[in-house]
């Protein structure tokens, strides 16, 4: 197991490097200029823009900028935002708590829906419960989040006037009031993301369960006279969950990456909205940092998923 882990980490290294080269080159070649807003302002002399470009090293050749970036990154310096003139890690750390809370809560909600509904549906396939659950699941994952988001805003904010639709990260209230305000404003975005994710996971859990529930060893367990509950929970679920674990693990980087569309609709100051703003303003250091961290997390969680396999299924060994 130890040597397997080491090997995997060694393989990961070149892929991370490769990803960073590709990202950097694509960003460097893409059209656009972080100081273009200044270009349209006739009061700003052109030499100011030229000096800014020189100051931030934008005129150096791409390979030089890349190595500059790489050495800085290795030293733990994530770069300096052209637009906000702040260290990139400060920007990301400011946005991270909100992203973790909102996206994290929506993933938990999705799990809480997907597991019981998926398991129960598979235990009694083609029952009324299964049919209704399947229909709702299909509706759930065929409606895009920007549509359900607007729908919820129309219903709960405009027609009923119950919930706010502008998310504020810093609420000045304290105590219960603070919790209440945060819950109130998080309900809609968490629902939108959680139900969408939950719908597809429900289908996944159900089919994984159905694959296992027909196997002979389940019949054996039943014929031993075990209770249905024990059969399902101990013998079926544990085996059926192996593919589900991969899916969930691979979804985890998204918790960091945020949800670009939903964050935009509800004005959630998360990583997703930071990324889209940075892209629109050509703020390369921020784009680079966010996408690169995201790439690293994808690789890391892939590894974690593989390790979890072994724990869930002892037949899998690491060589």
């Amino acid at each position, binding site marked *: 197991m130890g040597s397997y882990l080491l090997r995997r980490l060694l393989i990961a290294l070149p892929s991370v490097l490769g990803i960073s080269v590709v990202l950097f080159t694509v960003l460097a070649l893409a059209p656009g200029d972080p100081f273009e807003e200044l270009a349209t302002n006739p009061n700003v002399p052109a030499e100011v823009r030229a000096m800014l470009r020189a100051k931030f090293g934008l005129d150096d050749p791409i390979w030089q900028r890349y190595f500059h970036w790489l050495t800085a990154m290795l030293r733990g310096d994530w770069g300096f935002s052209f637009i906000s003139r702040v260290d990139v890690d400060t920007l990301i750390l400011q946005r991270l708590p909100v992203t973790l809370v909102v996206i994290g809560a929506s993933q938990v909600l999705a799990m809480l829906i997907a597991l019981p509904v998926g398991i129960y549906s598979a235990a009694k396939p083609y029952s009324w419960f299964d049919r209704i659950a399947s229909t709702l699941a299909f509706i759930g994952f065929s409606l895009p989040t920007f549509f359900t988001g607007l729908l919820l805003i129309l219903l709960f904010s*405009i027609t009923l006037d119950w919930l706010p639709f502008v998310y504020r990260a810093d609420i000045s209230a304290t105590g219960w009031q603070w919790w209440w305000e945060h819950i109130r404003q998080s309900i809609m975005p968490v629902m939108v993301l959680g139900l969408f994710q939950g719908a597809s996971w429900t289908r996944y859990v159900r089919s994984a369960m159905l694959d296992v529930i027909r196997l002979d060893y389940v019949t054996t367990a039943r014929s031993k006279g075990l209770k249905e509950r024990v059969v399902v929970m101990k013998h079926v679920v544990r085996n059926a969950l192996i593919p589900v674990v991969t899916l969930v693990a691979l979804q985890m980087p998204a918790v960091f990456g945020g949800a670009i569309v939903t964050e935009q609709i509800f004005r959630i100051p998360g990583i997703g909205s930071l990324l889209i703003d940075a892209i629109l303003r050509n703020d390369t250091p921020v784009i680079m940092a966010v996408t690169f961290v995201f790439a690293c997390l994808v690789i890391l969680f892939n590894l974690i998923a593989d390790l979890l396999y072994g724990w869930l299924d002892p037949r899998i060994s690491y060589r």
Partner: protein
Amino acid sequence: MQEREITHLIEDVRVGKLPRRNFILQMVSLGLTAPMASMMLMHAGVAQAQTAPTYKPTKRGGGGALKVLWWQGATLLQPHFANGTKDQEGSRIFYEPLAVWDNDGNLVPILAAEIPTKANGGLSADGKSVTWKLKKGVTWHDGQPFTADDCIFTWEYAKDPATTAVTMGIYKDVKVEKVDSHTIKVTFAKPTPFWATAFVAAEGMIIPKHLFAPYIGDKSRDAPTNLKPVGTGPYKFVDFKPGDMVRGEINNNYHMANRPFFDSIEMKGGGDATSAARAVLQTGEYDYAWNLQVEDEVLKRMEAGGKGKVHIIPSGDIEFIQLNFTDPFTEVEGERASIKSKHFAFTDPAVRQAMSLLADRKSIQEFIYGRTGVATGNFVNNPPRFRSPNTTWEFNIDKANAVLETAGWKKGSDGVREKGGKKMKFVLQTSVNSIRQKEQAVLKQACQKAGVDLELKSVTAAVFFSSDVANPDTYGKFWADMQMYTTTMTQPDAERFMDQYTSWEISSKANKWQGRNMCRWSSPDFDKAYRAAEGELDPVKRAALYISMNDMVIKANAVIPLISRPRVRGANLKLVSTLSGWDLDFSTLQNWYREA
């Protein structure tokens, strides 16, 4: 309008025959800005209107939180690094200039004790210097006193090339001296008729010497105060998340009595214009929203909610079409749209006239912009009550047909006019924007009826407005026959606005397409008038020159002005805000309050 007539009008204002406001509006309709007109009056010795703002609160604070929405959030809070107005607005909550422009073009003192005039000795007779008296007893948020040293420092800071301040253009050519602890003297290299630039309005915010002094020049980006502003403004800094939120709390030592009214301010960024309008007009979650670029019909529907209303503030922005005077599709000496080439049709004045006749401004206003745009034939902001009689516009397809017919452009078998084997097929480019695409459709329809075939092209805004030398689709290159966009008047003085038609600003390969004259029209007379205006000290003669320049551009049909675009803001029904079309939204933030 000639110099003599303007002098007459000023005389009328002085003796009280003509209301001051009417004079300003007339000047505005002729292509000048309200601040320029106001400066003419000041130069003639007519006192500024005493615009006492109707400020009702009788004590400081107690107004709760002021919540404003900027769908493009402020990304930094150092006014001299501002990328755009959003950053200037965010900084303006905390920092203040000496004076601001109100909506009638008056200078209103903020940190100045009074506005310099000839009468109070503030303006020198040769037009080369201005003496500002500063307000006494003003303190920075950290308790330090505000003095002339801070103004001198702000000048030194901004003019230092190593600081790379975006306001450098304003400060590099002036000299600022300290007269005494609360008086400064700004000296210009040459007589400067429009003197209210340094320390005034958006680019005039003064920063504290005691906090920024160690960070002048190269080290400018390391100043901790860049992120935690300490100013003299009505609100003190609490918290800042770039692109998301700026928070401030009441400054109990603010230098104006009973102000501010609100206990705290929250400036939230992100999202889009439509939902910002909704949060203010329909649900009332927020008190104020910036720049509502939304179709008027949608705004009206939201206003029906009864929570807020749309404020429309006249300003200098204009949506217009440029006609290319060079050939954009053939390379001459390795350059497309080279100044050495000639456009086959637009060099013919008759064609340009016909194109102007084919612009259906009325439909564009009525069906696309509604209240958020005013049809105009003038290259200026144009309040409808005072439309200048010598710059009329009309939409007349028959007349356009007749003009083209006489000029020798005959219809071919396919219904498209041609002359000398060249067909009237033009490419009209603009940025991707639902409003602009509708405008394009209106224009195409009218042109079709006159035998002119328009090919519509739309380019993503990020590319169209970029200065990317490698991209063929930028507005600076203008490699199409016609293009349409909004030109903004970022400074109240017309000098910078009018250089868009000088021959030395022609956009070309040599200047990396950074030149401001994109339609590549030029006229020796215009150049001469512009040069003359640059050195003209008498504001009346100068104004007359700008008016004649404006008329030259319009009469030549070098551009086709379509819609004058006022600023569109949304505010709660109870919020009383004093907004100016010539300065930032927050230019008089200290006077904002909520009615009971």
